[in-house]
């Protein structure tokens, strides 16, 4: 199955004293202040915090969209250092499956082509691509709608396509940023059920949200405030 648990390091994410400083209008803003966090393989963790708390910065660093100014980050036993942008792109491509609030599907492409995209960047052959895309779309129950463009799909369906796109590379980590934020509560619940199913199948999931109800569905909650990480005993 696509979502078979990655058997590997016990620790999927290790952040140690990670800081990120932005320079806004000549003033230093500590978006992350010596944040430390460990997430184990197969865990379902939510990161909760109000806007401006630094959770987006944390997500960007965990998601290898950005690198820390100081501190240590090890993802799936690979230290993420001052890699070049292209090397980070390769790491994102192979290890991380992103799920965004705004779905972020390419509107010109069909559902199928959207799901296929990360595999193209992995240079997977076309026969295998077709097979894996079909598998992922079947899992989110949208195989019948594979030829539809995002605009022809409902919000919930679009998010399911996005989940299929995240899963199709069999990533080490699923990183979801407010995945239910643009959906009504009923559809949001459906999406959350998919996350639970993925967790049950052994996927490591990090869910970033400001919604306590959503956050509470995770196995473990991590709070972030003013750039500081505060673990909550589960």
């Amino acid at each position, binding site marked *: 199955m696509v979502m078979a648990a990655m058997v590997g390091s016990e620790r999927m994410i290790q952040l140690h004293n990670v800081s990120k400083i932005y320079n806004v209008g000549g003033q230093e803003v500590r978006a992350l202040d010596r944040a430390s966090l460990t997430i184990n393989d197969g865990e379902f963790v939510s990161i909760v915090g109000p806007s401006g708390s630094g959770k987006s910065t944390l997500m*960007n660093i965990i*998601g290898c*969209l*950005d690198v820390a100014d100081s501190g240590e980050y090890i993802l799936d036993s690979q230290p993420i250092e001052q890699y070049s*942008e*292209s090397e980070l*792109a*390769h790491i*994102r*491509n*192979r290890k991380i499956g*992103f799920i*965004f609030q705004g779905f*972020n*599907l*390419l509107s*010109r*492409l069909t559902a199928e082509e959207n799901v296929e*995209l*990360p595999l*193209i*960047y*992995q*240079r997977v052959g076309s026969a295998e691509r077709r097979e894996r895309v079909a598998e992922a779309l079947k899992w989110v129950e949208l195989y019948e709608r594979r030829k539809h463009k995002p605009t022809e799909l409902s919000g919930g369906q679009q998010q399911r396509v996005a989940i299929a*796109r995240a899963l199709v*590379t069999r990533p080490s980590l699923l990183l979801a940023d407010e995945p239910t934020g643009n959906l009504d509560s009923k559809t949001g619940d459906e999406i959350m059920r998919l996350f639970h199913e993925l967790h049950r199948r052994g996927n490591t999931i990090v869910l970033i949200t400001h919604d306590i109800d959503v956050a509470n569905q995770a196995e473990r909650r991590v709070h972030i405030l003013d750039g500081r990480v505060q673990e909550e005993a589960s």
Partner: protein
Amino acid sequence: MIIQSIKMAMEAISSNKIRSFLTMLGIIIGVIALIVLVSLVGSASDSITDQVNSLGSNLLYVSITDDKGIPMKLDEIEKIALDKEFSAMAPMGQLTAIAQNGHADEVATVYGTTPSYSDIRGLDVDYGRFLRTTDVENSSYVAVLSQDAATELFGKTNIVGERVSLDGRSFLVVGVLAEDTSFMSMMSNRIAAYIPYTVATRMSDSLSGVSTIYASSSNPNSMDGAEEVLNSIMMKRLKGDEDAFSIINQSTIMDAMGSITDILSLLLGGIAAISLLVGGIGIMNIMLVSVTERTKEIGIRKAIGADRSSIMMQFLIEALVISLMGCAIGIVLSWFIIQLATMAADGVVTFTISGGVVGVAVAFSVAIGVVFGIYPAYKAAKKHPIEALRYEG
């Protein structure tokens, strides 16, 4: 990856058809201008060259501008013609006359010459005969008409035995030439009459001395010997004044024409290339707009693992596809235009597209796609993934 990039480019281009087409239009027009102009000049010059060659590649042409007060006589030319370097030589005196047959009249170009002229210029006679030596010796009032002169004045081609009036003097028509469809003939009067040189001198005072001589060398491969002999004879005859005459040989004319058409091709090709360049700037303009519009797309692609080179490749190939599609359309349209031009030329010139200029057009289009695509592609590739993802257009 290249195949995928081409597929992506096609999707992007077809998602905005009108804009893509308008962008291509610059390239299409540039390619058409390049191919059509260069092909027209090339084909025209080829056909002129062919016809000049068919006149005989051993033609020499002497023009005397100053006879030092002693008119050149016919028998002088006959003496010169005896030299073994020459196979034939003929004087040529040209005048304009009103040709009349009953009420029909036309302005005709009258050539006063000798029988050799027909051999030198390779004239074909359809009916009757060309001038004879006896016609010249006896100053007979006989004329050989061009086919156009016959049809214009008599309404038919076989008019041997009829009489035609040239400037009021009555001539017996002894021959009619074959129709001349050559490109060269379009540049001269098609109403022409050939009469004995001795008769022509009576019609115009200016022809009392020969000022134009046509000669063909006996060596078909080289005119150098003949030209040398002619030169020394003329120098002696004209008191060593080398400005009193000029000798032009066929290859000089060909060389001159070759360099003219080369310059013309280069000039027109250059203008066409400028329009291609403008087309390229259009591509760059649209690609820059497209990169900005698609910032979010770039962010998404980067988030799911596209590296800089993939993004760069995608946009570069898109620019290339636009310019190459434009080029292909331009080539096809050029072909149609050339066919139309050939039809319009009505058999006088057959226009063809030279493979070389198509090659140049394709190479130019590729170069333009790359040169004008690379900066927008670089801009796209350089976008930071987080900022690009945040972009709401």
